[in-house]
């Protein structure tokens, strides 16, 4: 990998991030960062989907549910008042270990609930287990059957969230506390911490982008592409296709749950609409609109589209515009609108990618 091109790509993303932030401060409209931060968190889910659908070719309509799984676990643990169990033995130990902290909400109601870091770990663990349980049987299926299995899973999760009082039934959970990641870094929606949270979200996205990019440029990435193209041939070449499909499914589920946890702490709450089928369909559509197997394209497209809808540019036509854009992009540019832009950027970076002298078109 020529050093120059790698450095160029590495530099591009932070420059855009900082440029946007400084530009907004100059224009006195830094509040737009809020919607950008929310869009970046949503983009994490679509990145996972790009890996799963674009590279490994496994359709999943279940990532709304994984986002909600992450968000709800941390919301329930950090807002539920566990002081009722103060009597039993374990609580003392947990409290000293800092797992349980006293919470004080705006209206003076005190309570004992789990510390955000512990809740985050629990959310990731629960998602890992659930993704394995649902992934193992589902990934033996193909195409529409896999889509239906994951859609069924999403509906089960969303109806359970709607039905149970613990998860606040239809109103969801609110008053989720801030999450002090590190001494100087707190995930919170307060306007004072807006710039800090913007860079936190973009930093997290950049780290994940780099990790996924390395993954895709390695033997694992090639194995995923091989599974997508011809699973039998990949299997005959020594790739344990079943295990790889499951691993990439679990990884994308963890990414979605991670996004759910950060988003819940940032907006201070989560609602059952996050786990709805419409949300999962929207993630798949965003991945497709971004070019499916094009990691940067998918990220940029999902940030842009989510930003427009969160800004409310289209008013009550928001859904209609999203649907129309989706149809337009996929019918005109199935490889994604940003592919030509990607190639132009590569040319701009000195020389076209030596390893793809002829463009690949499907046979």
């Amino acid at each position, binding site marked *: 990998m020529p050093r120059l091109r790698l450095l160029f790509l590495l530099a591009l993303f932070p420059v855009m991030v900082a440029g946007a932030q400084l530009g907004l401060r100059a224009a006195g409209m830094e509040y737009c960062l809020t919607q950008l931060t929310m869009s970046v968190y949503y983009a994490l889910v679509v990145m996972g989907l790009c890996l799963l*659908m674009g590279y490994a070719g496994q*359709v999943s309509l279940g990532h709304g549910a994984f986002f909600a799984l992450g968000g709800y676990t941390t919301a329930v643990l950090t807002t539920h008042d566990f002081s009722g169990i103060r009597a039993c033995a374990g609580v003392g130990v947990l409290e000293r270990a800092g797992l349980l902290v006293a919470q004080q909400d705006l209206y003076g109601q005190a309570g004992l609930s789990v510390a955000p870091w512990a809740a985050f770990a629990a959310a990731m663990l629960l998602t890992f287990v659930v993704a394995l349980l649902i992934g193992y*049987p*589902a990934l*033996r*299926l*193909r*195409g*529409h*059957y896999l*889509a*239906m*299995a994951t*859609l*069924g*899973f999403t*509906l*089960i999760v969303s*109806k*359970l969230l*709607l*039905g149970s009082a613990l998860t606040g039934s239809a109103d969801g959970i609110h008053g989720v506390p801030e999450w002090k990641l590190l001494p100087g870094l707190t995930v919170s929606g307060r306007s004072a911490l807006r710039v800090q949270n913007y860079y936190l979200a973009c930093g997290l996205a950049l780290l994940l982008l780099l990790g996924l990019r390395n993954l895709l440029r390695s033997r694992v990435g090639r194995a995923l592409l091989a599974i997508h193209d011809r699973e039998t041939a990949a299997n005959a070449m020594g790739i344990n296709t079943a295990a790889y499909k499951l691993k990439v499914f679990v990884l994308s589920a963890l990414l979605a749950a991670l996004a759910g946890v950060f988003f819940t702490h940032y907006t201070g709450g989560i609602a059952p609409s996050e786990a709805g*089928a*419409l949300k999962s*369909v929207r993630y*798949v*559509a965003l991945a*497709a609109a971004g070019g499916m197997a094009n990691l940067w394209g998918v990220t940029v497209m999902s940030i842009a589209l989510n930003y427009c809808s969160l800004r409310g540019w289209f008013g009550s*036509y928001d*859904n*209609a515009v*999203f*649907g*129309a854009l*989706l*149809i337009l992009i*996929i*019918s005109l540019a*199935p490889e994604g609108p940003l592919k030509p832009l990607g190639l132009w950027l590569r040319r701009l970076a000195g020389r076209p990618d030596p390893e793809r002298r002829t463009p690949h*078109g*499907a046979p």
Partner: protein
Amino acid sequence: MQNESLALQYLLSGITKGSIYAVVAIGFNLIYSATGIINFAQGEFLMLGGMVAVTLAAYVPLPVAVTGAVALVALVGGLLELAFFRRLRRHSILHLVIITMGLSIVIQETALHIWDEKVRSLPYFTGNEVSSVRFLGAAISPQVLWVLGTVALAVLGLHFFLRYTLTGRAMRACSSNPEAAMLAGINIPNMRTLAFGLSAALGALAGCVVSPMTMTHYEMGAPLAIKGFAAAILGGLGNPMAAVAGGLLVGLLEAASVSCLPAVYNDVSAFVILLLVIFVRPQGLWGALAPDRVREH
């Protein structure tokens, strides 16, 4: 209220729900078997059928309104295929399915702006809201019999069309082997347009016949499409008769789960069982495909 008639009543309410899902599932199967696409906008054909019929019913008698709605929505279905799918060549089935998702959203929003967000419904075909057919202590609305009649009519009509008419056989040919069908002189694009049009007509007819019971509003399509998709897969993709059985089964599962579990979990139990069936027998209960050749796109 002895428990036999209670059980019979649960059975009847399961059939009522199941008949609605079945009539949606048939529309799925038609487009799937002709083009291999799972049409996520199938629920929208139902909604459009209901909306157009209600608008027409204000001016013309009910039967004319229903036929008018079916014809109009069939036209819309055909036009959608022409506009969006006709010239797409280098697209995978996954891309086409995502386009139907986009279509579903766009149709919903346009319906919201053409009509409005209010709930409306066709009058009951026979009797009115309170009339019911009673036997053995259980009761069912006559409209359900109309829905079951429509389902039977649709299945028999489809069966006859696909088996004994030339175009029907051509449509089946182009779904099982498009290349061979093309060589045999079948115009594949027209077949696909016809499949969309026919499926839209079926959806519209279903929309009209369920409207008195489920009421029609611009957002009713999406949840019904998901249940119809589940019924089609449970029964066995591609087979209209199996889709009806799948639909009735989903309805009965929900009714059974309501009888023993709290009602809020009826969807949960229906989908848990659906997942179990898919994992064990992916091609569905009456599907024809061999397990390992689960049709992939």
